[in-house]
């Protein structure tokens, strides 16, 4: 082999960090989303659970918006191609390293050749795996988020599969061990109370229809994905028309087509739609809702915009306070001895 080839091979290897052994049910690369192109029909995409993405990054001292793996359901298996510092947050999918339990919500170091696997749904449905240095894929229109429908972003615009090798950027030196404080670690469960702001087309629904929407329990159906959640439950009555002249949709818009069942529009939604939107979920509750799974129950309660903004501000304050830097280990991250 020529010396020049050898050296370039070495550089190449130095930045490869993870290899996918099995892609699992559905694993994509996501960040905070693609902003600024909704007027051109391009949804934001981005993490379904933005809280967990932000915290996963902070635990490894990345910028909050670095790209992470969004792991949906089970089956993902990957191998570390070098010593890595990672964190796993979000839904508890029973993560393991070389068969032993892997702690979530804290900085973890893994040795080269360790296998990380996600083996069973315990709580929630989506895990976020961050790597110190951030997962590096080309930025498409300002974001690394995968948007499957257009085949853009992330790793070749598609879910990860066996053989994919992911690279990372340079990690900060002198990483500290960090942990999310116990009181801030969410327990998702299967019942969701989602606060909403009514409208913008609540006037398309009868008084009875509004009453049904705000007082009933709905079930999340299996026809739910990154585009949105289809709900089953009592039929919501329209006043007359179940069609509007198409207008822009929001993250969290709850549209109700003619059949009367609500549909919550999420990260990969179409940016315009022709069904009336009875209400819109508030941002703070949407972040969690990324952890809702088929079969879960959801109830909506209306609040006003001013209340919603207060909730958002207090959420951002909590986000600032929720991380502990462990005093005893406020030094370079120690690696677990590799299980052999």
């Amino acid at each position, binding site marked *: 082999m020529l010396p020049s080839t050898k050296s370039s091979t070495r550089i190449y290897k130095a930045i490869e960090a993870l290899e996918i052994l099995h892609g699992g049910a559905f694993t994509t690369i996501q960040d905070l989303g693609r902003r600024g192109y909704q007027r051109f029909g*391009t949804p934001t995409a981005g993490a379904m659970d933005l809280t967990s993405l932000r915290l996963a990054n902070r635990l490894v001292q990345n910028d909050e918006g670095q790209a992470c793996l969004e792991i949906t359901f089970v089956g993902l298996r990957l191998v570390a191609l070098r010593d890595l510092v990672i964190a796993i947050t979000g839904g508890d999918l029973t993560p393991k390293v070389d068969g032993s339990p892997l702690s979530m919500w804290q900085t973890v170091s893994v040795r080269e050749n360790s296998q990380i696997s996600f083996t069973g749904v315990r709580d929630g449905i989506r895990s976020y795996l961050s790597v110190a240095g951030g997962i590096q894929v080309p930025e498409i229109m300002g974001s690394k988020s995968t948007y499957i429908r257009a085949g853009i972003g992330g790793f070749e615009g598609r879910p990860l599969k066996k053989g994919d090798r992911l690279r990372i950027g340079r990690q900060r030196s002198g990483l500290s061990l960090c942990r999310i404080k116990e009181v801030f670690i969410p327990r998702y469960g299967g019942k969701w109370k989602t606060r909403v*702001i009514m409208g913008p087309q609540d006037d398309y629904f009868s008084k009875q229809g509004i009453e049904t929407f705000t007082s009933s329990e709905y079930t999340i159906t299996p026809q739910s994905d990154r585009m949105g959640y289809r709900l089953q439950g009592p039929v919501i009555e329209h006043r007359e028309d179940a069609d509007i*002249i198409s*207008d822009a949709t929001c993250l969290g818009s709850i549209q109700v087509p003619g059949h009367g069942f609500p549909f919550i529009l999420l990260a990969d939604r179409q940016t315009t739609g022709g069904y009336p939107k009875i209400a819109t979920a508030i941002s703070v509750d949407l972040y969690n809702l990324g952890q809702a799974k088929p079969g879960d129950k959801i109830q909506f309660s209306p609040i006003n915009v001013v209340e919603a903004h207060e909730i958002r501000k207090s959420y951002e304050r909590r986000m600032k306070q929720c991380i502990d830097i462990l005093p005893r280990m406020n030094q370079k991250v120690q690696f677990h001895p590799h299980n052999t």
Partner: protein
Amino acid sequence: MYRRPRYLPAGDEGLLVEFGNEIHPDTHNRVYGMAQAVEEAHIQGIEEIIPSYCSLLVVYDPLLISFGDLTDQLKGIEKNLSHLKIPEHRRVEIPTLYGGEFGPDLDFVATHHGLTPEEVIRIHSSQDYLVYMLGFTPGFAYLGGNLEKIATPRLKTPRVVVPAGSVGIAESQTGIYPIESPGGWQIIGRTPLKLFNPIQPPHFLLAAGDMVRFAPIHEKQYADLQSH
């Protein structure tokens, strides 16, 4: 068109300014004029503005601006919009190779209306279409225009793959597929232009408020344009 627009909350990060409740160029001119004015005002906290047929969705950061302040500022802008001023529309020509392999449904559309394929092409390419909004997929333009004479129902069985650039008709609507996708529109031609280019800016050929016209081209022109 309403006498005064409605300002409606769309969640805690969106404010919908609704100008009317019909598909009409005059209403859209108000939407489009407002979109331009809001953009020029550079209000701190506004993240995106998304125009559609008769409303404008303003996406904002609630940590930077309140709903009340934003509404006041938008009302101020709206008050100063001239009702008479019709905004300048950018004109975009879409070179289109009609029929043959690239427009497999042209003959069906012609037969459906007792026209020749040439007459269908002439009707389709001899008028301006206003881009009311983009949606559905990245770069897909909802076009206005008068296509009653060649309005044709969708295919009974949608195609699994419609190539990017395909020009189609569904009822009295016409549109261009920006990305390869499944689709049930009657495909009458194809443009070599890229409507969506995720890699290089400008990422989108069309924007709301543009005036579009289809221009028939021959195979040689198609090949020349494609190689550019």
